[in-house]
């Protein structure tokens, strides 16, 4: 599904990723953990194609083809989805209109018929149950005036509507209470299938109680310094990152 080799990337004038390797197979869920500033969000942004992040070396293959040849919208249409750490507010554009435009853009790209307003409403209502979101939020401007939890649920709703092959969750759990966390996790778990993969970026082990990963990677100073099974997350929770970072520098 995703094959990252020797990835180097710069953002904000500094080198953030310094030779990152990671392989994610179809059907797998991997967690990426690491301290602040280790490059977690930069990795997410490289994968989604944020223009302000510059890839300086390495390769990323998605379904066997180079990701760097694709615009952000082409990546989305080919099944990549990034749940933003900080979802953007777009005044004046209704959430409903936004999501319908997104789904229809993706459907059009795939040669599928576009959904009309009625069909879309039906679809989105179904998906909203999954994330327990108030329908009133669909008629408001995208993320404008949403609480932190509502914004994150809105990300998961978009994911549920777009049904990506590769979902990347960038600290979707930060700032969520335990109920919201469970809802977000259920949204991700509902998408789990042999053909779909997810990269769950998080600070805390907490989320991984609900989304059980196949592999856990520790990112420190722009590289994966340790990979392991789901128990690695618990070990990190108990011991912190210090011992791994020291190991990485040594």
């Amino acid at each position, binding site marked *: 599904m995703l094959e990252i080799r020797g990835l180097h990337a710069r953002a904000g004038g500094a080198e953030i990723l310094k030779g990152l390797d990671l392989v994610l197979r179809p059907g797998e869920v991997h967690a990426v953990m690491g301290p602040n500033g280790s490059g977690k969000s930069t990795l997410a942004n490289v994968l989604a194609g944020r223009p302000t992040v510059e890839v300086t070396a390495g390769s990323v293959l998605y379904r066997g083809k180079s990701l760097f040849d694709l615009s952000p919208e082409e990546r989305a249409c080919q099944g990549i989805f*990034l749940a933003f750490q900080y979802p953007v507010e777009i005044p004046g554009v209704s959430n409903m209109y936004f999501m319908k435009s997104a789904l229809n853009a993706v459907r059009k790209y795939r040669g599928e018929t576009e959904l009309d307003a009625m069909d879309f409403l039906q679809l989105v209502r179904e998906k909203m149950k999954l994330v327990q979101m108030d329908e009133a939020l669909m008629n408001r401007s995208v993320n404008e005036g949403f609480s932190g939890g509502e914004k994150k649920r809105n990300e998961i709703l978009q994911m549920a509507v777009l049904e990506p092959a590769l979902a990347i969750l960038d600290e979707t759990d930060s700032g969520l209470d335990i109920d919201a966390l469970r809802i977000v996790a259920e949204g991700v778990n509902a998408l789990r299938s042999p053909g779909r993969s997810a990269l769950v970026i998080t600070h805390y082990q907490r989320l991984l109680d609900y989304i059980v990963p196949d592999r856990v990677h520790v990112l420190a100073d722009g590289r994966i310094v340790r990979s392991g099974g789901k128990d690695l997350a618990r070990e990190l929770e108990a011991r912190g990152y210090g011992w791994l970072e020291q190991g990485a520098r040594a």
Partner: protein
Amino acid sequence: MNPLAHWQERFAAAPPVGLPWLDALRRKAFDRFVEMGLPTTRAEEWRYTNPARIAKTAWDEAGPVPELDRQALERICSPVYACSVFVFVNGRYAPQLSTPPALGSWLGVSSLARAAARSELSQRLGSVGEPVTSFAALNSAFFGDGAWLRVAEGKRVDEPLHLVFVSAPEDDPIATHPRVLVEASPGSQLTVVEDHVSLAAGSSFTNCVTEVEIGANAGVEWIKVQREDPTTLHVSELRARVARDGRLSAHTLCFGTALTRNDARVRLDGPGARCDLRGLFVAGGDQLVDNHTWIDHAVPHGTSRELYKGILDGRARGVFNGRVVVRPDAQKSDAVQQNPNLLLSRDAEIATQPQLEIRADDVKCSHGSTVGQLDPDSLFYLRSRGVPLEEARDLLMRGFVSEITRELSVAALAERIDDLVVERLGMARDLPEGT
């Protein structure tokens, strides 16, 4: 060519109307025009907008109204509200294209030319303030026709009245001088859509004046849609007076002619009077859109809200000049003015200038203007969901203008305006240089 001499010739050649009051009004207005002269960029008020293009053309009067197909017309001025459309072609009322509403005695809608013999009109026309620019004086001297709308006390007109001014270009350059007079009696309510369209590209100059008199506790929503051909020229003046607890909601929606200049002058004339001036200007290519507004807080307890939003692409230039005057005894005046702008290209320019003249001490007045580009984070967010770049830009522009369009009481028109923003910017991109 001497521009003034050209108009003098034209005025001398025009036959008198034969109504003493109207001939006197024209004479006086023309003298005023000559006295003021055609503006040049040497005048502060025209610093950024060079009217030479208007001054240097030998504008002629339009010939007889051409045959027009109502269906063709409806396509260019959609949405059309079936029951109350008043069409003027090159400034002349076209009854065969119009569908007046079933009029009660409390709603009057007349062609100015047809109503000219009525003595009350002589008292009203030109009574809402003095002309601000010499073009407005020129309008008074030359207007051939227009609309006179009046609503009786306490009456509410639910359906919008749709005035359509059609420019039908001819071989020679033509100038038209449409005129509108709106009178809302105390406690009445009215929505007027003043829609300026053209049948084709061509050298045409529209010079219109609208007077709005709002009685105590009355409300007028005035929506001006300016969607003529991008090659035409358009100058307009809105003069409004709002009595105690009256309210004016004025929307000026400009979609780019070669040169547009709109002056709005509103006098809050009674305590509790309020005006909301909203504007949208969208221009590309080499177009220029200039909006000058002037709100006069003449008495205490007046409220004004002003929001003009601009989107400029290509080498387009925008001008916003917002003057708010609070007179010495106009205490408790409350004025807010905002002018946010989006520049879509490196060569587009906006000159934005608030002018607050506050002579009272117990007032709340604020203003702000911003100039920015489409937000890159928003663009990336939309693209990351699969929305193509071009469509993402359109979506953000629709979002930007929604603050204006959502305030329109006519929902179908609001939708059309959203579409026009995107259509017109696309159209301007395809114009040859120098248009």
